Each structure stands twice: as structure tokens, then as C-alpha cells.
């Protein structure tokens, strides 16, 4: 077990390096750069930018360097171990002129062009709310999907099963952003909830208080339901299908024949096995918590990290986009490892390494 984890941790290093290069290259791949999109966006609102100004901006953002230089600079700043930039601006030479040996330092995620802010600052303030929404949504999804999935499997082809299936398919079929728009309209028409965002205008920048928290809860249900419905529907189907596979198996029949209480039997054996797919996808939940449900968050105007990433990618705001992609990749790699460990623990049938078979 320990060997496995160590080996996986070591493999993460080359994986992340490869991801960093590919993602940085992909962000740079579309034609133009941040300035092209900035200038054309302004032109669309009827605010032409003179070519002379574009030159000044390109200089300001240091966008006239070759790709590899930009990449290496970014990578060096990103790593906790590397060349510390000197006051003269050089990475290789110290102020005294000697060779500047690489050392441990704080990772620096770089600047966002569009926000004119440090990336850490931008992500930091959005992270808490993003995680709150994601965790609440996840709990909502599980709390709804697992019992409903069990019910649908045990009472297969009952009216209840049909009802949940129909609702589930609708939830799956309606695009999230559409549901978000409908809810926003209904929320304002019937409850007077200001459309979009997580707070009413008066609580927007107020300090935390009971009233502000209540206000947050009044807004939170919309994103939770909107993001949750699609996930719930999918999960119900997975849960139902898995359980249906387990229920006719012989061990269930045996346990039943021996007189184990039906409820106890159900929870203790088939349900536990049916949960495996949920656990193995936990690895995707972790980055999901950070990136959020992007389109829904954009429509609802949530102050989360998803819209930040989307916008950065659209605009080729490359340090912001690159750093966020790196964070997400890091979390995916960690999450996959976590879910593998959880699976090993949950299901004794799974073996690692394969040499035990010999």
C-alpha cells in the first residue's frame, strides 16, 4: 500500500510537467494573443483602439517574447524550487554578478492581464464560495440520488420508479443554463430575489452576520438545484443499474434464505458494492469543486472560479488560465489517487500491483 502511494506520488511529477507544457501551448495556440481579443472586444462596443496604443499595450504586457521564454518564465515562477528573480530582473545572475543558484521560494502564479491582479489573489477570494457551493451541491446530489436509486432498483417498474425515471431524464435533458434562467426569473417574480449572484445588493460587501448568512441561503438554493439536477439524474441511473446487477446474485439469495432482515441485508451488502462507481469518480469531484459548473455559474453570475477560468481561456489571459489549469490538474491527480485508496479500502476484492495473482 505504502509503495503504491509513493510510486504514484513520484509519477505525478512528470505528469504535471507534461500537463504544464501542453496546457500552456494550448492556451497560446489560437491565433492572436490577449491584446487581439482585448482590442477586438473593444471594437465591437464601438470603441476603437488605435494601432499606436496597441503597441504600447503589447510592451506593457511583455507579449512580444518568444513562446519558450514565456513558458520557462512562467514555469520557473510556478515552481516552489527554482531561480529567484533578482532586483535587476535577471534570473541567472545575482546582483553581485555571480551565478544565481536555484533555491526554495514561494510559488508565484503570475499576473492576470485583464484583472491587473495577482492570480493568487483572484483565485483566493473565490475559492471559499466555490467550495461551499460544490460541497452543498454534492451533498444534495448524494442525499437525493442514493435513496432514490435504491428505491428504483428495489421497486423496479413500479409507478414510483417510473416517476423518478421521468423526472430524472428531464433533469438530465434540460440544459443547466436554461434551468438557471428560468429559476432566476421565478426567483425574482415570486420571492423578490435579485437575479444572479449569491447575495442581495445590500449584503454584497457587508461583513459576515446572521442576516448575511440567511441571505446567502436564500440565494444558494438556485445554484444548488440547478447544478444538482443533472448530477442527481445521472447518479440515480448509475445507482439503480448497479444495484439491479447485484440484487439477483446468489449471495443475496443465500442471505435472504438464511433469514437476514431485508433492510439490513440490502444496506450491508448489495448497496455497498453498488457504491463503488461513486467512489471511483470522487477523483473528478475534487477538481469539480474548484472549477465548478462553469456555464451555470456564468449565467447565475456566481463569484466562483469557473467563470474566471472560462473568461481567461476566451481572452488568452494566459498566466491566469495556465495557473488555473495547473491547479485543476494537480487536484485531478490527487483526487484520482484518493479515490483509488478509498476503493482499496472499501472493496477488499480489488488488488493492487497484480503480483499477488502469481
Amino acid at each position: 500500500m505504502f509503495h503504491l502511494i509513493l510510486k504514484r506520488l513520484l509519477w505525478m511529477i512528470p505528469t504535471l510537467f507534461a500537463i504544464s507544457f501542453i496546457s500552456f501551448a494550448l492556451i497560446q495556440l489560437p491565433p492572436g494573443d490577449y491584446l487581439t481579443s482585448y482590442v477586438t472586444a473593444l471594437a465591437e462596443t464601438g470603441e476603437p483602439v488605435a494601432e499606436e496604443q496597441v503597441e504600447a499595450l503589447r510592451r506593457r504586457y511583455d507579449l512580444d517574447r518568444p513562446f519558450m521564454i514565456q513558458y520557462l518564465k512562467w514555469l520557473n515562477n510556478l515552481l516552489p524550487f527554482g531561480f529567484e528573480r533578482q532586483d535587476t530582473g535577471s534570473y541567472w545572475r545575482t546582483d553581485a554578478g555571480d551565478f544565481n543558484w536555484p533555491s526554495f521560494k514561494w510559488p508565484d502564479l503570475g499576473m492576470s492581464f485583464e484583472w491587473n491582479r495577482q492570480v493568487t489573489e483572484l483565485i483566493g477570494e473565490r475559492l471559499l464560495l466555490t467550495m461551499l457551493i460544490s460541497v452543498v451541491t454534492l451533498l444534495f446530489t448524494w442525499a437525493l440520488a442514493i435513496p432514490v436509486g435504491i428505491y428504483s432498483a428495489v421497486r423496479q417498474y413500479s409507478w414510483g420508479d417510473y416517476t423518478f425515471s421521468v423526472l430524472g431524464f428531464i433533469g438530465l435533458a434540460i440544459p443547466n443554463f436554461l434551468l438557471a434562467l428560468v429559476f432566476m426569473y421565478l426567483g425574482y417574480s415570486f420571492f423578490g430575489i435579485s437575479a444572479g449572484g449569491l447575495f442581495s445588493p445590500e449584503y454584497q460587501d457587508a461583513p459576515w452576520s446572521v442576516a448575511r448568512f440567511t441571505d446567502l441561503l436564500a440565494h444558494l438554493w438556485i445554484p444548488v438545484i440547478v447544478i444538482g439536477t443533472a448530477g442527481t439524474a445521472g447518479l440515480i441511473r448509475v445507482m439503480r443499474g448497479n444495484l439491479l446487477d447485484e440484487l439477483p446474485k446468489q449471495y443475496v439469495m443465500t442471505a435472504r434464505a438464511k433469514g437476514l432482515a431485508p433492510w439490513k441485508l440490502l444496506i450491508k451488502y448489495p448497496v455497498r458494492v453498488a457504491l463503488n462507481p461513486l467512489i471511483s469518480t470522487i477523483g473528478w469531484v475534487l477538481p469539480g469543486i474548484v472549477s465548478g459548473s462553469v456555464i451555470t455559474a456564468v449565467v447565475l453570475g456566481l463569484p466562483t472560479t469557473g467563470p474566471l477560468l472560462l473568461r481567461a481561456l476566451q481572452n488568452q489571459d494566459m498566466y491566469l488560465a495556465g495557473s488555473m489549469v495547473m491547479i485543476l490538474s494537480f487536484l485531478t491527480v490527487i483526487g484520482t489517487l484518493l479515490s483509488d485508496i478509498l476503493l482499496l479500502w472499501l472493496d477488499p476484492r480489488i488488488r493492487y500491483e497484480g503480483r499477488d495473482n502469481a
Partner: protein
Amino acid sequence: MPYRSILHFLRRLGLVALGLFLLTEALGYITFFLSGAGEADLSRLEALPAPARQDRPPESLNQVAEWPIAKGRAFQQAPMLDALVQTGTLPPVAERLPENPLVIVPAHQNGPYGGTWTRYGTSPSDIGIFSHRLAYDGLLRWGPMGREIRPNLATHWDIADEGRSYTFHLRRGVRWSDGHPFTADDIIFWYEDVLQNKDLTPVISVEYNKGGQLVQIEKLDDYTVRFRYAEPYGLFLKMMASNLSYQLVSYPAHYLKQFHPRYVPEEELLAKARASGKDFWYQYFTDRYDYRNPTCPRIWPWIVSKPPPARPAEFMRNPYYWKVDPEGQQLPYIDRMTFEIFDIETINIKAINGEVGMQGRHTTFQNYPLFMANQERGGYKVRHWLDGGDGTMAITFNLNHKDPVLKKIFHDRRFRIAMSHALDREAMREAAYLGQGEPRQVSPPPASAYYVPEHLYAYLTHDPALANRLLDEVGLSARDEDGHRLRPDGQPLFLNIETSSTMLGAGKTFEMIAANWTAVGIKSVVKHQARQLYAQRRNALLCDVLVWGGAGEIIPTLDPRWFIPYNASSFFGLDYARWFRSNGKKGEKPPPDMLRCIEIFRQIERTVDEEEQIRLFKEIIEINRHNLWTIGTIGAIPQIFIVSNKFRNVPEVAVGCWPLRTPGATAPESYAIVAN
């Protein structure tokens, strides 16, 4: 039994399908009724007054005046500043205001003070509308209809030497938002240390370079500056009123000198720059000057107090703002302005819900019926402003096309006229513009002093027979078996109509243009592209047909992009524009008629007399009428502004366009919000 199981499966399938159908139908009906979309019938739209063609009576627009010295200095200030004055943090209002504050006579009423102007944007850079349009304070300013130039920071000005020399007399005693006096020294700082600094201004824009020489700016005394050009520059005042002077009065020397290497050792600056994550001193300098820096003093009505990414970004009143109303109340009336970022659809829902203060940006015309239907419920009014850029859609052929055969076809004037006659503009008007507007070419609208009806309404009839005849004359009479015309070299003639995917507002129109052209045998296809890709293909001269919106045709001399190959937005001749801007060093030399237009425009640039400018520009328009380098579709589409019923002093009608910095020219500092 397989038969039974199939039956069973079918029954289940049927049940699920029925359930799904019923539920989606129900959901659809519920949302339809709740959204009020059913109420927005078009008969109500047609009852609307047509957008005004003429200047409105002056009482509904703001006016400017000078403060009568005889009236004394009994000025009043916003209640939120009282406490600050009492504690001594702020000097009394009479000491903060200049000797002769500029008086803005509001459009409707004086005051009241207070309130928050809530605005929404779609991106962080969109908040830049604050510095582009809401903080519209230069030496001069346009009136709200774009007809006259008004004093602002300059009280008056003299023109001498046939338009080579301009002397501006600055308002005495204007102060930056930190209380420091604003003087000619600030303008000189900008001139010497910003404009002429190679790091801050790598390329000096053409407006400051006339006759091959940089403009000379001298300080005559603390409140007088003189601009001297090597040759007469007749458009200078207009440029100053539009945007030029904004730059030169936005650099507070007393604050920014500490970030400039001429005044502070460069190593010291570099250390500071690095500490804030910048690599070079000029990045740090620009960052300090940026409107998002709350510590940099300004002369604007509001100043950023919580810069983005704060949600909402917040701007608060400038206690040293140098304008008053006729009763001597210091402007602005509105205390605070907030910006929040949402998706464009969300912003439209917010507008319908009545959550918008006063905003014209992002309120898309496609939602016009919804805006109209929800006015009462949402507590707002829809204002129809005249669009100063009249060409809602400008269609151009790439006259610099790399393909010599296509280039030759595009250069035939009969071809362009045929393509204009092939368009069914009435159908476009009905389908895409809800029956609003009228067919027009891209030309100054009737509200403009440069209006030439012969061009605005030229070649607009939908006449496929005429189009077909003209196309045959051009030499495109050969057709393939599908009826599509062939090029003179026997290849099929095929046109890509290219545009940016973000111009979807007019999506239906594109398809109609392609269908109309295909109907006269010119096979055309619409290609929506990401805006970066579009920009690159355009600049590489790879596009066939380019479509874009109009500019500020109401004052066409400021940006004549659709009349002469003027800049990178003159899509009909981008390589000719390069030739024009580089004085013949780069790009392709334009054909004779275009050269003639450029010549006349250069003459306008040297002409001070407005009447003569108009007469000359009408000559350019006449050459354009003959050549039709740009094809228009529908014009006179009003600009939609959503104005909360609590807002006062927002004019019923004004002109909306970039040269007037809309809504800047309607004096947002005189807008007011009533409690109920």
C-alpha cells in the same frame, strides 16, 4: 417469450415518452406565461412614436454656463460630505470649488443628492466603460446632440495662424481629487514625460503628428497652454472634444512623478515595480495611472473606491469635482456607482426585473418587446436614442483580395451596386429588427450636419432583375448546372460572408444576405468566427465579404472609416488604409476615386471653417455614392436605454455613439436619483 418482452418494452417506452412529452409541454407553457412573453404583442410596438429625426427642444437636454461671480460663493454639497467637513478631513465646499465652477443646467431638475447607480458589465474590461464613457472630462466636451463643442476644463480657447495654433484657457482653481491644484504643469508633464517617453508611448498617434512634426505644447502661464502644429489642423477641436484631451488632463504630475525615472532613480523604481509583481518601471507607472488604482488623483465626477475584482466594483463621488448646478449645488448628484459582472442574458433579465439604474450597454435589441412589455412592472422606461453610427450593418467586399479574379470582380462598381439591389431589406427589417428602422446605406443620418439623402437612400430597392442584369454586364453571365454564376476563369463564384461570432445580435440578417445573393446566382455562405480568428484573417486580407457595425457617422470627419480607407476598421480596403496611415510607405496604393477622397479628407484636416468642412465631406460622400464601397442594410434603429423611474435628468432623446462618449455627452454627473 420474446414477443411478450418486446411488448413489455414498448409499453414502458410509450409510458416514458408520454410522461416526458407532457412534462416538457407543461414546463414550456409555465415559463411562457410567467415570462410575460405572450403580452409583448407587436401591435403595442407599432404604437410607439418613431425615433425623432430632428434635435429635440433644448429644455430636455442639459446646458452649460459659467458661474456668475456676482452670485457669490454660497455653494452646497452632498450630505455625505458634511461629516467630513465638520471633522476637518475636508475643507469647506467653497474652498474646494474653482474660482468659476462650470454650471451644468440639468435636463429636468436640480438634485436631489444621493443614491447608487447600479450598472452591469459582462467582463472585467467592460468596467472600463467608466473611464471610456462615464468619466468624460477633457478640455472640451460635445453637447448631447453632437452639434456644438462646449467648454469644460477649458473656459475658452483661441485659434490662430489659420488653425496651426490653439490656445486653451484653463478653469482657474480646479483641483485634483486629493485637493492639489490642476494647472498647465500637469499637461506639460503628460506632454514631456508621457507622450515623448519611448517606453510609455512607443508610437505617437497621428493626431499629435501633423506635417511630419510633433505638436509643440507650451505653458504660457499656470492656466494657459498653447498647442502649435506644423500645418493647419482643422479637426483638432473636434478631436479634443471627442477623446484626445482626455489623456492629457488625466496625468496628475504631483502624484505620478514618484513613478517616473526622470524624477526618481530607475533602480528604485524597478525595486518598487518588482515588489508589485511587475517587470519594468513603465508597467508599474501604467498600473499606477490605471483608473482602477484608488490612490491616483483624478478630475472625474466619481473615483474608484473598491476596484475590481471587488463585487461589486465601486466608484464614489469626487469631493473636489469642479462643476455645480444653477443653484450652486456641487455635482455629481449621485453618491456612488457600482459595477457587477454577469452573463449578458442575466443582465437582460435584471433589466426586465427593474434592477438596472440607467444602462444602454448589453440591453440587446432582440429583447426589445420584453423591455417594452415589462416597463410598468419593472418600474423603468425604455428610452430610444438616435444611433450616431447609422449603419447597423456595413457590408464590404475586400478590395485588396489576394485572388486577382475576385479582386477584379469586387473592383467593378456595377457588381457592388448589383449586390445592394439584390438585398431584400424590407424582409430583414421585419425578421430581424421587429419592423423598426428603415433601409439605409452607411451615411450620416438626417440628424447630422453632413446628411446627404442621395447617398443614404441610394440603391436600396430590392430589384433582383436589375441585379441580375448588372451582374451579367460585369461578365458573370456564365452559370453552372445549379444556376450559380461562374467567374470569368470558369471557376464557380463563391463568397464567404465573414463575421465575428459575437455579432450574433444580427444573426438572422446574415442568413438573409446570403440567401438574397444566392438567389441572383452568387453562391454565398455565412461564416461566424471567434473574434481573434476574424481579426487575423481580416488583417491577412483573406476574407471575401466582411460585415461590421457602423461608426459615428453623425460626425463622419472624426472616424471616416466607411468613406475613405482610414484605419484598421475600414474593412473594404485594409491595405489601402495601411497606405494612407503610412503616407504611402506601406500597403497598396488606392484606385483614383479613393485617392481623390483621401485628398479631400486631407484638405478637411487642414480646414478650420466648419461650413467648408461639411461642404468638402459632402464631396467625399458623393464619390462614395457613385462607388458604393460599403453597402448598408437597415438604419435608424434606436439605441435602447433602460432608465429606472427613479432616475432624473436622463434626456428622452440624445445621440448615442463613440465620438460623443455616450452617455458622457449627456452629463452623467447631472443625473439624479429620487428616493421613490
